[in-house]
Protein backbone atom coordinates (compact mmCIF):
# COMPACT_ATOMS: atom_id res chain seq x y z
CA UNK A 1 0.00 0.00 0.00
CA UNK A 2 2.84 2.30 0.69
CA UNK A 3 4.43 1.36 -2.56
CA UNK A 4 3.67 3.93 -5.20
CA UNK A 5 5.54 2.07 -7.94
CA UNK A 6 2.50 -0.01 -8.90
CA UNK A 7 0.90 3.22 -9.92
CA UNK A 8 4.00 4.35 -11.71
CA UNK A 9 4.46 1.16 -13.68
CA UNK A 10 1.26 1.46 -15.62
CA UNK A 11 1.54 5.22 -15.92
CA UNK A 12 3.38 5.43 -19.23
CA UNK A 13 0.87 3.26 -21.00
CA UNK A 14 -2.06 5.01 -19.39
CA UNK A 15 -0.76 8.42 -20.35
CA UNK A 16 -0.35 7.36 -23.97
CA UNK A 17 -3.88 5.97 -24.05
CA UNK A 18 -5.33 9.05 -22.39
CA UNK A 19 -3.59 11.27 -24.90
CA UNK A 20 -5.23 9.26 -27.64
CA UNK A 21 -8.55 9.85 -25.85
CA UNK A 22 -8.95 6.12 -25.44
CA UNK A 23 -12.26 5.51 -23.69
CA UNK A 24 -10.97 2.36 -21.98
CA UNK A 25 -8.09 4.29 -20.46
CA UNK A 26 -10.33 6.55 -18.41
CA UNK A 27 -11.98 3.51 -16.86
CA UNK A 28 -8.53 2.09 -16.11
CA UNK A 29 -7.47 5.41 -14.67
CA UNK A 30 -10.53 5.54 -12.45
CA UNK A 31 -10.01 2.04 -11.08
CA UNK A 32 -6.32 2.66 -10.46
CA UNK A 33 -6.61 5.96 -8.68
CA UNK A 34 -10.15 6.61 -7.41
CA UNK A 35 -9.50 5.19 -3.92
CA UNK A 36 -6.30 7.21 -3.46
CA UNK A 37 -7.92 10.42 -4.66
CA UNK A 38 -11.15 9.86 -2.78
CA UNK A 39 -9.25 9.22 0.45
CA UNK A 40 -7.40 12.52 0.17
CA UNK A 41 -10.54 14.44 -0.80
CA UNK A 42 -12.47 12.97 2.08
CA UNK A 43 -9.70 13.93 4.51
CA UNK A 44 -9.95 17.49 3.21
CA UNK A 45 -13.70 18.01 3.01
CA UNK A 46 -14.69 15.51 5.73
CA UNK A 47 -18.19 14.95 4.39
CA UNK A 48 -18.97 12.02 2.14
CA UNK A 49 -21.52 13.77 -0.09
CA UNK A 50 -19.16 16.65 -0.70
CA UNK A 51 -16.22 14.28 -1.24
CA UNK A 52 -18.23 12.39 -3.85
CA UNK A 53 -18.95 15.59 -5.73
CA UNK A 54 -15.34 16.63 -5.59
CA UNK A 55 -14.18 13.21 -6.81
CA UNK A 56 -16.44 13.53 -9.83
CA UNK A 57 -15.21 17.06 -10.52
CA UNK A 58 -11.68 15.76 -10.19
CA UNK A 59 -12.09 13.05 -12.83
CA UNK A 60 -13.93 15.37 -15.17
CA UNK A 61 -11.08 17.82 -14.90
CA UNK A 62 -8.43 15.10 -15.36
CA UNK A 63 -10.22 13.88 -18.48
CA UNK A 64 -10.91 17.27 -20.01
CA UNK A 65 -7.62 18.91 -19.11
CA UNK A 66 -5.45 15.94 -19.88
CA UNK A 67 -3.71 17.69 -22.75
CA UNK A 68 -2.19 20.08 -20.22
CA UNK A 69 -0.48 17.25 -18.37
CA UNK A 70 3.29 17.36 -18.93
CA UNK A 71 5.30 14.24 -18.07
CA UNK A 72 8.46 16.31 -17.96
CA UNK A 73 7.16 18.24 -14.98
CA UNK A 74 6.08 15.29 -12.90
CA UNK A 75 4.36 11.97 -12.58
CA UNK A 76 0.73 11.41 -13.46
CA UNK A 77 -0.16 10.53 -9.87
CA UNK A 78 1.36 13.79 -8.61
CA UNK A 79 -0.59 15.74 -11.20
CA UNK A 80 -3.89 14.04 -10.35
CA UNK A 81 -3.37 14.38 -6.60
CA UNK A 82 -2.81 18.08 -7.12
CA UNK A 83 -6.07 18.43 -9.00
CA UNK A 84 -7.96 16.49 -6.34
CA UNK A 85 -6.35 18.39 -3.48
CA UNK A 86 -6.85 21.80 -5.07
CA UNK A 87 -10.52 21.14 -5.85
CA UNK A 88 -11.11 19.83 -2.33
CA UNK A 89 -9.30 22.74 -0.69
CA UNK A 90 -11.21 25.21 -2.90
CA UNK A 91 -14.35 23.60 -1.57
CA UNK A 92 -13.51 24.07 2.09
CA UNK A 93 -12.40 27.63 1.44
CA UNK A 94 -15.73 28.47 -0.13
CA UNK A 95 -18.56 29.98 1.89
CA UNK A 96 -20.00 26.80 3.36
CA UNK A 97 -16.70 25.83 4.93
CA UNK A 98 -15.21 29.08 6.04
CA UNK A 99 -18.17 31.27 6.67
CA UNK A 100 -16.34 33.36 9.15
CA UNK A 101 -12.91 34.83 8.86
CA UNK A 102 -9.73 33.68 10.58
CA UNK A 103 -10.90 35.35 13.79
CA UNK A 104 -12.81 32.20 14.62
CA UNK A 105 -10.27 30.69 16.95
CA UNK A 106 -8.46 27.39 16.38
CA UNK A 107 -11.07 26.02 14.04
CA UNK A 108 -8.53 24.33 11.83
CA UNK A 109 -6.39 22.91 14.56
CA UNK A 110 -9.29 21.52 16.50
CA UNK A 111 -10.55 19.80 13.40
CA UNK A 112 -7.17 18.32 12.67
CA UNK A 113 -6.66 17.03 16.14
CA UNK A 114 -10.03 15.45 15.95
CA UNK A 115 -9.37 13.95 12.55
CA UNK A 116 -5.96 12.56 13.35
CA UNK A 117 -7.04 10.88 16.55
CA UNK A 118 -10.61 9.81 15.97
CA UNK A 119 -11.46 9.55 12.29
CA UNK A 120 -8.52 7.53 11.09
CA UNK A 121 -8.90 3.88 11.84
CA UNK A 122 -5.90 2.27 10.22
CA UNK A 123 -6.71 -1.22 9.07
CA UNK A 124 -3.40 -1.66 7.41
CA UNK A 125 -0.06 -2.30 9.09
CA UNK A 126 1.62 0.14 6.70
CA UNK A 127 -0.74 2.90 7.74
CA UNK A 128 -0.21 2.14 11.40
CA UNK A 129 3.54 2.12 10.94
CA UNK A 130 3.56 5.49 9.27
CA UNK A 131 1.15 7.22 11.58
CA UNK A 132 2.89 5.77 14.61
CA UNK A 133 6.29 6.83 13.42
CA UNK A 134 5.28 10.43 12.92
CA UNK A 135 5.70 12.57 15.98
CA UNK A 136 2.34 14.28 16.66
CA UNK A 137 3.92 17.72 16.44
CA UNK A 138 5.23 16.88 12.98
CA UNK A 139 2.11 15.09 11.85
CA UNK A 140 -0.21 17.95 12.62
CA UNK A 141 1.85 20.32 10.50
CA UNK A 142 1.82 17.94 7.53
CA UNK A 143 -1.90 17.33 7.95
CA UNK A 144 -2.72 21.04 8.16
CA UNK A 145 -0.80 21.80 5.03
CA UNK A 146 -1.67 18.73 2.95
CA UNK A 147 -5.27 18.19 3.98
CA UNK A 148 -6.12 21.66 5.23
CA UNK A 149 -4.55 23.80 2.56
CA UNK A 150 -2.68 25.88 5.12
CA UNK A 151 0.48 27.64 4.05
CA UNK A 152 3.55 27.47 6.29
CA UNK A 153 2.89 30.94 7.68
CA UNK A 154 -0.76 30.11 8.35
CA UNK A 155 0.37 27.01 10.23
CA UNK A 156 2.84 29.05 12.26
CA UNK A 157 0.13 31.55 13.06
CA UNK A 158 -2.50 28.95 13.95
CA UNK A 159 -0.18 26.90 16.13
CA UNK A 160 1.59 29.97 17.44
CA UNK A 161 5.04 28.60 16.72
CA UNK A 162 7.96 30.17 14.82
CA UNK A 163 8.05 29.75 11.06
CA UNK A 164 11.45 28.06 11.34
CA UNK A 165 9.94 25.39 13.56
CA UNK A 166 7.20 24.71 11.00
CA UNK A 167 9.85 24.26 8.34
CA UNK A 168 11.99 21.97 10.45
CA UNK A 169 9.11 19.78 11.56
CA UNK A 170 7.69 19.51 8.06
CA UNK A 171 11.09 18.61 6.73
CA UNK A 172 11.68 15.94 9.37
CA UNK A 173 8.28 14.44 8.77
CA UNK A 174 8.80 14.17 5.02
CA UNK A 175 12.29 12.72 5.55
CA UNK A 176 10.87 10.08 7.84
CA UNK A 177 8.08 9.23 5.40
CA UNK A 178 10.69 8.98 2.66
CA UNK A 179 12.68 6.48 4.72
CA UNK A 180 9.59 4.43 5.48
CA UNK A 181 8.68 3.92 1.83
CA UNK A 182 12.19 2.72 0.90
Amino acid at each position, binding site marked *: *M*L*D*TTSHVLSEDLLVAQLRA*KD*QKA*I*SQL*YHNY*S*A*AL*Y*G*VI*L*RVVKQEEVA*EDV*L*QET*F*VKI*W*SAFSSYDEQ*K*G*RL*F*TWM*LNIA*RNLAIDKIRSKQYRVSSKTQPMEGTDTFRMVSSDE*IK*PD*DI*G*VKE*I*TNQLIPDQKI*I*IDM*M*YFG*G*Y*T*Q*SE*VAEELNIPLGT*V*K*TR*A*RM*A*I*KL*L*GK*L*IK
Partner: protein
Amino acid sequence: MDTQDFIDSGVIELYAAGGLSEPEMAEVENQALQHPAVKAALENALRAIEAYALTHAQTPSFKLDEQILATLSARPSAEQYQEERPVAQTIPFPDTSTQEFSFQKQWKWAASLLLVISAIANIYLYRQVQEKEQELVASRQQTRQYVYQTNQLEQKSFQSENLVQVLTDPQTKSIALKAVDQKNSASGKVFWNQETKDVFFNPRNLPPIPAGTQYQLWALLDGKPIDAGVIALANLDVQQMKAIEQAQAFAVTLEPMGGSASPTLSNLVVSGTI
Protein backbone atom coordinates in the same frame (compact mmCIF):
# COMPACT_ATOMS: atom_id res chain seq x y z
CA MET B 1 21.18 30.77 -2.63
CA ASP B 2 23.41 27.75 -3.07
CA THR B 3 21.73 24.62 -4.42
CA GLN B 4 22.59 22.58 -1.34
CA ASP B 5 21.40 25.37 0.94
CA PHE B 6 18.18 25.46 -1.03
CA ILE B 7 17.72 21.71 -0.59
CA ASP B 8 18.56 21.93 3.13
CA SER B 9 16.24 24.88 3.75
CA GLY B 10 13.19 22.61 3.94
CA VAL B 11 11.35 24.51 1.25
CA ILE B 12 11.20 21.39 -0.94
CA GLU B 13 9.46 19.43 1.81
CA LEU B 14 7.07 22.33 2.35
CA TYR B 15 6.30 22.27 -1.37
CA ALA B 16 5.54 18.56 -1.25
CA ALA B 17 3.38 18.95 1.83
CA GLY B 18 1.48 21.74 0.12
CA GLY B 19 2.52 24.47 2.58
CA LEU B 20 3.87 27.02 0.12
CA SER B 21 2.22 30.06 -1.41
CA GLU B 22 2.04 30.25 -5.20
CA PRO B 23 5.14 32.45 -5.67
CA GLU B 24 7.11 30.17 -3.34
CA MET B 25 5.93 27.13 -5.31
CA ALA B 26 6.99 28.74 -8.57
CA GLU B 27 10.47 29.30 -7.14
CA VAL B 28 10.84 25.62 -6.21
CA GLU B 29 9.63 24.53 -9.65
CA ASN B 30 12.10 26.91 -11.24
CA GLN B 31 14.99 25.59 -9.15
CA ALA B 32 14.01 22.01 -9.97
CA LEU B 33 14.15 22.81 -13.68
CA GLN B 34 17.64 24.26 -13.32
CA HIS B 35 19.25 21.87 -10.85
CA PRO B 36 18.96 18.09 -11.12
CA ALA B 37 19.79 17.78 -7.41
CA VAL B 38 16.78 19.92 -6.52
CA LYS B 39 14.62 17.95 -8.92
CA ALA B 40 15.73 14.67 -7.30
CA ALA B 41 15.09 15.99 -3.81
CA LEU B 42 11.67 17.23 -4.87
CA GLU B 43 10.85 13.88 -6.42
CA ASN B 44 11.79 12.10 -3.19
CA ALA B 45 9.71 14.48 -1.10
CA LEU B 46 6.72 14.07 -3.41
CA ARG B 47 6.95 10.29 -3.27
CA ALA B 48 7.06 10.45 0.53
CA ILE B 49 3.97 12.64 0.82
CA GLU B 50 2.16 10.59 -1.83
CA ALA B 51 2.84 7.45 0.17
CA TYR B 52 1.35 9.23 3.14
CA ALA B 53 -1.64 10.29 1.07
CA LEU B 54 -2.11 6.69 -0.01
CA THR B 55 -2.39 5.57 3.60
CA HIS B 56 -5.68 7.47 3.63
CA ALA B 57 -7.03 5.74 0.53
CA GLN B 58 -10.68 4.88 0.70
CA THR B 59 -12.69 3.14 -1.97
CA PRO B 60 -15.65 5.21 -3.14
CA SER B 61 -19.06 3.59 -3.31
CA PHE B 62 -19.93 1.40 -6.26
CA LYS B 63 -22.74 3.79 -7.10
CA LEU B 64 -20.29 6.62 -7.39
CA ASP B 65 -18.04 4.53 -9.65
CA GLU B 66 -20.87 4.01 -12.11
CA GLN B 67 -21.96 7.60 -11.97
CA ILE B 68 -18.53 9.04 -12.62
CA LEU B 69 -17.67 6.59 -15.40
CA ALA B 70 -21.00 7.33 -17.07
CA THR B 71 -20.30 11.05 -16.85
CA LEU B 72 -16.88 10.60 -18.39
CA SER B 73 -18.14 8.32 -21.17
CA ALA B 74 -20.76 10.88 -22.13
CA ARG B 75 -18.17 13.54 -22.70
CA PRO B 76 -16.42 12.48 -25.93
CA SER B 77 -18.35 12.51 -29.20
CA ALA B 78 -21.06 9.90 -29.63
CA GLU B 79 -19.54 9.06 -32.98
CA GLN B 80 -16.32 7.82 -31.41
CA TYR B 81 -18.25 5.74 -28.96
CA GLN B 82 -20.28 3.97 -31.69
CA GLU B 83 -17.21 3.09 -33.70
CA GLU B 84 -15.78 0.95 -30.97
CA ARG B 85 -18.85 -1.24 -30.63
CA PRO B 86 -18.36 -4.60 -32.32
CA VAL B 87 -21.11 -5.74 -34.66
CA ALA B 88 -22.40 -9.28 -34.13
CA GLN B 89 -22.72 -11.44 -37.23
CA THR B 90 -24.36 -14.81 -37.71
CA ILE B 91 -22.20 -17.28 -39.56
CA PRO B 92 -23.91 -20.48 -40.73
CA PHE B 93 -22.23 -23.66 -39.52
CA PRO B 94 -22.11 -26.52 -42.05
CA ASP B 95 -23.77 -29.83 -41.13
CA THR B 96 -21.01 -32.47 -41.10
CA SER B 97 -22.79 -35.45 -39.60
CA THR B 98 -23.36 -37.36 -42.90
CA GLN B 99 -19.86 -36.81 -44.19
CA GLU B 100 -18.12 -37.89 -41.04
CA PHE B 101 -17.36 -41.52 -41.99
CA SER B 102 -15.87 -40.96 -45.43
CA PHE B 103 -14.01 -38.00 -44.02
CA GLN B 104 -12.27 -40.16 -41.45
CA LYS B 105 -11.33 -42.80 -44.03
CA GLN B 106 -9.96 -40.21 -46.36
CA TRP B 107 -7.90 -38.74 -43.57
CA LYS B 108 -6.40 -42.15 -42.77
CA TRP B 109 -5.40 -42.72 -46.40
CA ALA B 110 -4.02 -39.28 -46.71
CA ALA B 111 -1.99 -39.67 -43.53
CA SER B 112 -0.55 -43.04 -44.65
CA LEU B 113 0.36 -41.66 -48.03
CA LEU B 114 2.04 -38.68 -46.46
CA LEU B 115 4.04 -40.97 -44.18
CA VAL B 116 5.34 -43.03 -47.15
CA ILE B 117 6.20 -39.91 -49.11
CA SER B 118 7.93 -38.52 -46.09
CA ALA B 119 10.01 -41.71 -45.59
CA ILE B 120 11.11 -41.74 -49.24
CA ALA B 121 11.96 -38.09 -49.07
CA ASN B 122 14.00 -38.70 -45.94
CA ILE B 123 16.10 -41.45 -47.56
CA TYR B 124 16.63 -39.33 -50.63
CA LEU B 125 17.60 -36.29 -48.61
CA TYR B 126 19.93 -38.33 -46.38
CA ARG B 127 21.81 -39.57 -49.44
CA GLN B 128 21.95 -36.10 -50.84
CA VAL B 129 23.44 -34.83 -47.62
CA GLN B 130 26.10 -37.59 -47.60
CA GLU B 131 27.06 -36.80 -51.19
CA LYS B 132 27.30 -33.14 -50.45
CA GLU B 133 29.47 -33.83 -47.43
CA GLN B 134 31.91 -35.83 -49.53
CA GLU B 135 31.94 -33.10 -52.13
CA LEU B 136 32.64 -30.62 -49.45
CA VAL B 137 35.62 -32.61 -48.13
CA ALA B 138 37.07 -32.93 -51.64
CA SER B 139 36.45 -29.29 -52.30
CA ARG B 140 38.27 -28.34 -49.13
CA GLN B 141 41.28 -30.44 -50.08
CA GLN B 142 41.34 -28.84 -53.47
CA THR B 143 41.18 -25.41 -51.93
CA ARG B 144 44.12 -26.25 -49.70
CA GLN B 145 46.04 -27.43 -52.74
CA TYR B 146 45.32 -24.19 -54.56
CA VAL B 147 46.42 -22.17 -51.59
CA TYR B 148 49.67 -24.11 -51.43
CA GLN B 149 50.30 -23.69 -55.14
CA THR B 150 49.52 -20.02 -54.99
CA ASN B 151 51.97 -19.60 -52.16
CA GLN B 152 54.64 -21.45 -54.11
CA LEU B 153 54.04 -19.30 -57.15
CA GLU B 154 54.15 -16.17 -55.11
CA GLN B 155 57.40 -17.23 -53.54
CA LYS B 156 58.84 -18.07 -56.94
CA SER B 157 57.69 -14.84 -58.39
CA PHE B 158 59.27 -12.99 -55.50
CA GLN B 159 62.52 -14.89 -55.98
CA SER B 160 62.53 -14.17 -59.71
CA GLU B 161 61.97 -10.51 -59.14
CA ASN B 162 64.68 -10.52 -56.56
CA LEU B 163 67.00 -12.37 -58.89
CA VAL B 164 66.36 -10.00 -61.76
CA GLN B 165 67.19 -7.14 -59.47
CA VAL B 166 70.44 -8.78 -58.34
CA LEU B 167 71.49 -9.82 -61.84
CA THR B 168 70.82 -6.43 -63.35
CA ASP B 169 72.50 -4.60 -60.47
CA PRO B 170 75.56 -2.66 -61.65
CA GLN B 171 77.50 -4.13 -58.72
CA THR B 172 76.90 -7.68 -59.93
CA LYS B 173 79.74 -9.31 -61.83
CA SER B 174 79.05 -12.09 -64.28
CA ILE B 175 81.76 -14.77 -64.44
CA ALA B 176 81.68 -17.39 -67.16
CA LEU B 177 82.95 -20.83 -66.15
CA LYS B 178 84.31 -22.99 -68.92
CA ALA B 179 84.96 -26.69 -69.19
CA VAL B 180 88.38 -27.81 -68.14
CA ASP B 181 88.23 -30.67 -70.60
CA GLN B 182 88.15 -29.16 -74.09
CA LYS B 183 85.99 -31.99 -75.40
CA ASN B 184 83.36 -31.20 -72.79
CA SER B 185 80.72 -28.67 -73.73
CA ALA B 186 79.87 -27.98 -70.11
CA SER B 187 79.69 -24.40 -68.93
CA GLY B 188 78.37 -22.37 -66.02
CA LYS B 189 77.83 -18.84 -64.95
CA VAL B 190 78.42 -17.17 -61.58
CA PHE B 191 76.82 -13.88 -60.62
CA TRP B 192 78.62 -12.19 -57.75
CA ASN B 193 77.45 -8.99 -56.21
CA GLN B 194 80.43 -6.98 -55.02
CA GLU B 195 78.40 -4.96 -52.58
CA THR B 196 76.24 -7.60 -50.92
CA LYS B 197 78.69 -10.47 -51.58
CA ASP B 198 75.75 -12.61 -52.70
CA VAL B 199 76.61 -15.39 -55.14
CA PHE B 200 74.23 -16.91 -57.72
CA PHE B 201 74.94 -19.77 -60.08
CA ASN B 202 73.26 -20.83 -63.29
CA PRO B 203 73.69 -24.63 -63.62
CA ARG B 204 71.75 -24.98 -66.91
CA ASN B 205 74.66 -26.08 -69.02
CA LEU B 206 76.19 -28.60 -66.66
CA PRO B 207 76.00 -32.22 -67.87
CA PRO B 208 73.85 -34.78 -66.07
CA ILE B 209 75.63 -36.61 -63.25
CA PRO B 210 75.46 -40.11 -61.72
CA ALA B 211 73.26 -40.74 -58.74
CA GLY B 212 74.88 -40.12 -55.36
CA THR B 213 76.94 -37.22 -56.66
CA GLN B 214 76.39 -33.47 -56.61
CA TYR B 215 78.08 -30.42 -58.09
CA GLN B 216 79.76 -28.07 -55.65
CA LEU B 217 80.82 -24.48 -56.26
CA TRP B 218 84.14 -23.13 -54.96
CA ALA B 219 85.60 -19.70 -54.74
CA LEU B 220 89.36 -19.54 -55.13
CA LEU B 221 91.39 -16.98 -53.25
CA ASP B 222 95.19 -17.08 -53.40
CA GLY B 223 95.05 -20.67 -54.56
CA LYS B 224 92.87 -21.78 -51.68
CA PRO B 225 89.33 -23.10 -52.28
CA ILE B 226 86.40 -21.64 -50.30
CA ASP B 227 83.17 -23.64 -50.18
CA ALA B 228 80.34 -21.76 -51.91
CA GLY B 229 77.75 -24.50 -51.43
CA VAL B 230 76.33 -27.46 -53.32
CA ILE B 231 74.19 -27.03 -56.39
CA ALA B 232 70.63 -28.30 -56.15
CA LEU B 233 69.92 -30.87 -58.82
CA ALA B 234 66.21 -30.71 -58.98
CA ASN B 235 66.34 -27.12 -59.91
CA LEU B 236 68.01 -25.94 -63.07
CA ASP B 237 67.17 -22.32 -62.46
CA VAL B 238 69.62 -19.73 -61.24
CA GLN B 239 70.15 -20.39 -57.54
CA GLN B 240 71.65 -18.55 -54.68
CA MET B 241 74.90 -19.92 -53.26
CA LYS B 242 76.86 -19.03 -50.14
CA ALA B 243 78.03 -15.45 -49.86
CA ILE B 244 81.68 -14.96 -50.76
CA GLU B 245 83.70 -12.07 -49.39
CA GLN B 246 86.69 -12.23 -51.68
CA ALA B 247 87.59 -14.39 -54.67
CA GLN B 248 89.83 -14.46 -57.71
CA ALA B 249 88.20 -17.38 -59.43
CA PHE B 250 85.21 -19.78 -59.25
CA ALA B 251 85.18 -23.49 -59.99
CA VAL B 252 82.71 -26.38 -59.91
CA THR B 253 83.70 -29.93 -58.92
CA LEU B 254 81.74 -33.15 -58.83
CA GLU B 255 81.50 -34.36 -55.27
CA PRO B 256 79.68 -37.04 -53.34
CA MET B 257 76.15 -36.15 -52.39
CA GLY B 258 76.11 -33.39 -49.78
CA GLY B 259 79.45 -31.93 -50.83
CA SER B 260 82.97 -32.11 -49.48
CA ALA B 261 85.09 -30.02 -47.16
CA SER B 262 87.70 -29.58 -49.80
CA PRO B 263 87.37 -29.95 -53.57
CA THR B 264 88.26 -33.15 -55.36
CA LEU B 265 90.47 -31.54 -57.99
CA SER B 266 90.40 -34.57 -60.26
CA ASN B 267 86.73 -33.98 -60.68
CA LEU B 268 86.98 -30.31 -61.66
CA VAL B 269 84.24 -29.63 -64.22
CA VAL B 270 84.19 -25.91 -65.03
CA SER B 271 86.19 -22.91 -63.86
CA GLY B 272 86.63 -19.21 -64.59
CA THR B 273 88.67 -16.30 -63.29
CA ILE B 274 87.26 -12.92 -62.43
